[in-house]
């Protein structure tokens, strides 16, 4: 009997070891938002509706306020610019991975939504479900070592009518893009500081300060502009990027299905090839 108890205790100890190792500090459940919390959201600036990027200004910004690439990086940018001008654009987004930050804000051709809820602001893009930013506004500090991701870890707070955001932990492979054909991987250690605010009742500005020590000579201050639309025709719709990689077909029972398109170096080939 005593042996059994000893074995049971040992088994519990063995199980408790890994479990204890998985216990995280400061992981207490967050209290549910209260009516006061929701009222605070209602008092925020009204950023409802659909925000359409001003694409012509994206290009103009690059011309008038160029990215301060390091000289050796500028040579790469020149190469990709020449490739595009020669009709051989480098398709930064062809793999359907997210733009990531800051390119999501810098070069998107699709509309976004900005959704405030208690303790958080969520930015949703139209291209794919993976164009999404979660900006925590619940007073938390930036974690010491968050897992790197395409959009990074964002912590924000409100300064009056301005949402102030800091973003870190962006994957080093994520581009700083100036177009859909020209961009350079940030290389890691990038920090993005943003001030998001209305310029007028229907114009939202993202003022970005991009600090990328591996590729930029200095922090790059730039602005991107989005115009509000409230029509139903402008509501965000689903945009699954990889849908174009599939043919519509039928299975042996006649059910409509998707089948992978045969591709060679990105070129779609006939089925069965």
């Amino acid at each position: 009997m005593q042996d059994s108890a000893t074995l049971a205790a040992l088994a519990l100890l063995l199980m408790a070891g890994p479990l204890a190792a998985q216990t995280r500090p400061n992981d207490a459940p967050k209290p549910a938002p209260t009516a006061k919390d929701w009222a605070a959201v209602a008092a925020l600036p009204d950023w409802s509706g659909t925000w359409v990027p001003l694409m012509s200004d994206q290009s103009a910004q690059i011309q008038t306020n160029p990215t301060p690439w390091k000289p050796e990086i500028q040579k790469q940018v020149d190469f990709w610019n020449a490739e595009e001008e020669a009709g051989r654009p480098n398709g930064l987004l062809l793999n359907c991975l997210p733009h990531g930050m800051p390119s999501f804000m810098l070069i998107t051709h699709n509309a976004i939504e900005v959704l405030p809820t208690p303790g958080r602001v969520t930015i949703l893009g139209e291209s794919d479900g993976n164009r999404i930013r979660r900006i925590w506004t619940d007073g938390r500090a930036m974690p010491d070592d968050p897992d790197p991701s395409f959009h990074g870890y964002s912590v924000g707070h409100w300064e009056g009518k301005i949402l102030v955001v800091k973003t870190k932990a962006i994957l080093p492979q994520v581009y700083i893009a100036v177009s859909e054909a020209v961009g350079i991987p940030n290389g890691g250690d990038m920090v993005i500081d943003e001030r998001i605010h209305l310029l007028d009742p229907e114009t939202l500005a993202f003022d970005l300060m991009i600090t990328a020590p591996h590729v930029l000579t200095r922090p790059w201050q730039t602005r991107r502009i989005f115009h509000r639309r409230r029509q139903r025709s402008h509501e965000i719709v689903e945009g699954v990027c990889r849908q174009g990689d599939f043919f519509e077909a039928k299975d042996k029972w006649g059910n409509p299905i998707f089948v992978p398109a045969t591709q060679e170096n990105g070129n779609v080939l006939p089925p069965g090839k």
Partner: protein
Amino acid sequence: MSFRPANKEACVRLTWSLAALAIAAQPAAAHHSFAMFDANKTLTLKGTVTQFSWTNPHVYLFVDVDGTTWGVELTSPGNLTKVGWTRNVVKPGDKVEVEVNPLRDGKHGGGFRQMTLANGQVLRARLFDLEGKAS
């Protein structure tokens, strides 16, 4: 690359894929620069719609011009909806005139500029052209 369609569905898929192949001097599947199209050249394709693929990330229009299928690439369904298009704006069999910037490599593909329907209605879709006009 011989391919023998075995049934109607295969024919449809062949049409789709050949058109996609024609357009595929560069990867055709995802959002990208339109630099593979020659912005300094304009062609008008007068023909019959064989397929209108309302798919992300780019909508494709396939037009038969005297027995040759041309693939024409547009922006996304979401962006087209914002400027008044629907997935039913054209259908196979419709007679159309489509103005395109052709592929630089001479293959039968192009970037969409505008389309005139049989009733004379002109549809545009280039976002830069329409920017600020949708409100």
